[in-house]
């Protein structure tokens, strides 16, 4: 790379502890790719980090429009990172629409890098700007770097045989080069990636590599960039890491569970945002005895998974709210049949089609109660992208050991968000022992394990165990159809008690803070990261807060009932209109107070803190 001018220019370097960058541009600008490259480089460099893609539902929205803006946010630090960050320190905007949409998410005095060449009259008009914001006072109070990225990219690629349209497509690498200089990142990870990705296209390898280097050299050598930032490596637990999204982690968790149970994994699914990636990733692993079945609809997806489970596979289905609604009848059926099944809901904005690419926690009550009759299903929630691995493994293990469907709740935020994951030692992950009825003994389909109340399964193919089951009420022990009133009452209670008993087989979450005091915050799911920040900041302010983050929402942990009565204020922040809080109030008769926001976005740390202080004040 060029260093001729760098020696003449004095550049300052500042050390920063924590930086949040937002990349934004047209959905065709390669923003997700750029963000992912910055993430890989940063992870390998050794910072802790967390990322969040924020893209439109339209696949290729008309260029330059506000609704076609695709964003990618990353927070990285030399300290712990719990979230992709609230407001960003740096905005890299590839066109006026991206600037307009993202400006509200930038800190005061934040850095803006824009592609000046994209600020044409037409693009300004599409973004709804009457005046060019680079020329009026719109961006006063920010540090603006307007760089002619398109022009500079073309100049850098002047000798490339690519067509000019293809050359222009390299401009995201130019922007990435600038970001690498500004945050002192090495280029090798991305250069290697380009080489691998475009293996058989040497012209494209060359052009993208040139553009990346050119962006880096430009920032290094021109006078407009005076300062770069150093973010030291974070102190993290030693071991082998990879960056992982929530949906990838779910897939690995499921495969791990099926291998540890020595079973085939069968996933019946139907494409739906933001759960489709689970089907995509699983379908790659045929050699891990994973069978995926893209069914004709959501109902057939879960039906096939139940059929496979009956035949001896680990049955899994994955969807999002609207798809889960369609599966409802089959979930009640799985409760009646008492078959193992993992049901994954990657929640998105609702109701109805709602906000498919946005996040929400509003399907908790659907998971708890969304079926006819008394049909309790255990509900577990993942708290972060990497945590999806353990949550999925645990969901599968409980489903198999308790012969029950299990709901695993994730959401768009952690499904698509990514963070470094300490890869576990596979030898230390416990085996899952699945016991079938003894083929030498006569078989009673609804005989139960006296401890867990799980029923004894016997697979088709087991001689002498031929039996018939269905969705009609079962007679206790024999499993024959029964309309007996007392038997129905007994079976309803048995199915409920089975779910309650699994509390004895799961890890009790620990309260963070004192077991009595002024404020107890109770949360579940993907708000975990934000709540880490909330609690840290409140304690830094000198406020004592305790925090209980739920793993299983059904059944609730044993200790919560006692602890929850020991606080003056019980506060329940959720990305919904108050769903967990209804359960807690009903279960414990406490006057808990909600903090709710339903914008399709994760909480902002400060908003939660303000809301908690407001509740404290009364």
């Amino acid at each position, binding site marked *: 790379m060029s260093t001729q001018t760098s020696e003449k220019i004095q550049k300052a370097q500042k050390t920063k502890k924590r930086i949040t960058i937002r990349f934004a541009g047209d959905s065709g600008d390669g923003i997700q790719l750029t963000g992912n490259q910055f993430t890989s480089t940063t992870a390998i460099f050794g910072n802790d980090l967390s990322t969040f893609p924020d893209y439109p539902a339209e696949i290729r929205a008309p260029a330059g429009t506000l609704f076609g803006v695709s964003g990618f946010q990353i927070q990285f630090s030399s300290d712990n990172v719990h979230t992709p960050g609230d407001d960003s320190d740096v905005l890299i905007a590839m066109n006026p629409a991206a600037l307009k949409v993202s400006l509200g998410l930038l800190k005061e005095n934040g850095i803006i890098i824009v592609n000046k060449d994209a600020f044409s009259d037409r693009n300004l008009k599409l973004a709804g700007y009457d005046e060019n914001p680079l020329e009026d006072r719109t961006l006063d109070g920010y540090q603006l770097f307007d760089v002619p990225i398109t022009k500079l990219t073309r100049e850098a690629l002047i000798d490339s045989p690519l067509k000019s349209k293809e050359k222009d497509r390299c401009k995201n690498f130019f922007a990435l080069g600038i970001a690498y200089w500004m945050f002192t990142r090495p280029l090798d990870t991305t250069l290697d990636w380009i080489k691998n990705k475009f293996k058989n296209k040497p012209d494209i390898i060359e052009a993208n590599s040139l553009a990346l280097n050119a962006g880096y050299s430009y920032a290094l050598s021109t006078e407009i960039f005076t300062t770069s930032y150093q973010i030291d490596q974070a102190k993290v637990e030693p071991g082998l890491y*990879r*960056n992982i999204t929530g949906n990838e982690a779910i897939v690995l968790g499921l495969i791990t569970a099926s291998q540890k149970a020595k079973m085939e994994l069968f996933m019946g699914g139907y494409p739906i945002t933001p759960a489709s990636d689970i089907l995509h990733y699983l379908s790659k692993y045929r050699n891990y005895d994973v069978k995926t079945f893209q069914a004709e609809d959501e*109902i057939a997806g879960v039906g096939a998974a139940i059929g496979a489970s009956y035949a001896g596979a680990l049955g899994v289905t994955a969807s999002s709210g609207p798809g889960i609604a369609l599966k409802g009848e089959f979930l009640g059926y799985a409760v009646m049949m008492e078959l193992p099944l993992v049901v994954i809901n990657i929640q998105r904005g609702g109701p109805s089609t709602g906000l498919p690419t946005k996040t929400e926690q509003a399907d908790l009550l659907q998971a708890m109660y969304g079926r006819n009759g008394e049909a309790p299903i255990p509900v577990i929630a993942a708290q972060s992208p990497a945590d999806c691995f353990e949550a999925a493994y645990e969901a599968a293990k409980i489903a198999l050991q308790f012969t029950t469907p299990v709901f695993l709740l994730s959401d768009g935020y952690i499904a698509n968000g990514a963070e470094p994951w300490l*890869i576990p030692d596979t030898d230390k992950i416990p085996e899952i022992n699945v016991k079938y009825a003894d083929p030498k003994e006569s078989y009673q389909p609804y005989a139960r394990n006296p401890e867990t109340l799980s029923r004894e399964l016997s697979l088709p193919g087991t001689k002498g165990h031929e039996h*018939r089951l269905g*969705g009609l009420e079962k007679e206790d022990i024999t499993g024959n159809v029964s309309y007996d009133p007392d038997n129905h009452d007994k079976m309803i209670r048995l199915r409920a008690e089975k779910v309650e008993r699994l509390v004895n087989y799961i890890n009790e979450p620990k309260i963070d803070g004192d077991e009595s005091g002024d404020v107890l915050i109770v949360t579940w799911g993907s708000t975990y990261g934000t709540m880490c920040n909330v609690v840290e900041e409140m304690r830094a302010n000198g406020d004592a807060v305790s925090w209980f983050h739920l793993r299983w929402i059904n059944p609730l942990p044993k200790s919560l009932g006692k602890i929850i009565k020991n606080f003056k204020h019980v506060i329940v922040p959720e990305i919904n209109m108050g769903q967990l809080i209804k359960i807690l109030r009903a279960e414990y008769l406490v006057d808990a107070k909600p903090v709710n926001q339903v914008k399709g976005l994760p909480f902002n740390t400060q908003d939660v803190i303000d809301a908690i202080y407001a509740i404290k004040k009364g």
Partner: protein
Amino acid sequence: MSDQVLTKEDFTSDQEVRWCPGCGDYSILAQTRKVLPQLGIPKENIVFVSGIGCSSRFPYYIDSFGIHGIHGRAPAIASGIKLANPDLKVFIVTGDGDGLSIGGNHLIHLFRRNIDVTVLLFNNRIYGLTKGQYSPTSERGKITKSSPFGSLENPFDPIKMALASGATFVARSVDREPKHLAETIKMAAEHVGTSFVEIYQNCNIFNDGTFESLTDPKIKKDNIVVMEEGKPYIFGKESDRVLAWEDGSFSVNMHDEASSSLVHSLANSNSSVEFALAELTMDEHKPTPIGVFRKINKNTYDGLLTKQVENVKEKLGSGDLEKLLSSGNTWEIK
């Protein structure tokens, strides 16, 4: 193969049969119990799957593995069973409401995929278990509890649906023709791929006599043509008429020894003949065909899936969990 010879009693479960006395389902149950031992499959390797409706009680009465599913969804459950364990012989028992109305979507996709299961669809042209509403196969104008002034809907033909959506074995039989029924069920069960049998079944409570013209010994021979391999389509009380293939459709001719007519040949058939035969059903001037409309060999979904798993294993090696977890861009913190 089983080492002991099974009988129909071996396939009779201890459950009391609870269909209305005189229901056509009894005949289908009896013929199925008779056929099952002839398949040479141990009964523990047989799974009957059903949805909801009178017909869907069927699995309770067969002493094999059985699943009574939910309304319309038997094909989904059965697909999962067969794909998870291709060694099992899977039957689906459904009706015109369960299989063609609420579950119509699943059935066409089952046919399209050619998953190796056998579907027995009991068509009585009525909803029986819900006590007498019109079904997707009820004729237009039918007076029922939900259509007191006559149904406004056109019926559709399950055979044409099965042919069009790609089932590889398509046949029809009648509850009152026990021998034909048994033979048809046996052929369907032995077919590799999705096999479909529409069984005309009399509901003597809510739609008694709907198939009378095909079952009344006095007139049935004039109204039914039995499709038999290698034989022309001869019918009539005196076996005096024949279906002749002319310009892409069938017409009725008098049968005399000298004339040459199209011969039923499953190996050499094509879709125009198959559909033309199916078309006869709705034509009141022509006989209704029973027997096999189609029997072709095609790769099954379950067979291809098993092969795909083997191929991927061969190419990439059996899955190694440690390798899987540590794939992608990794870095080590010391």
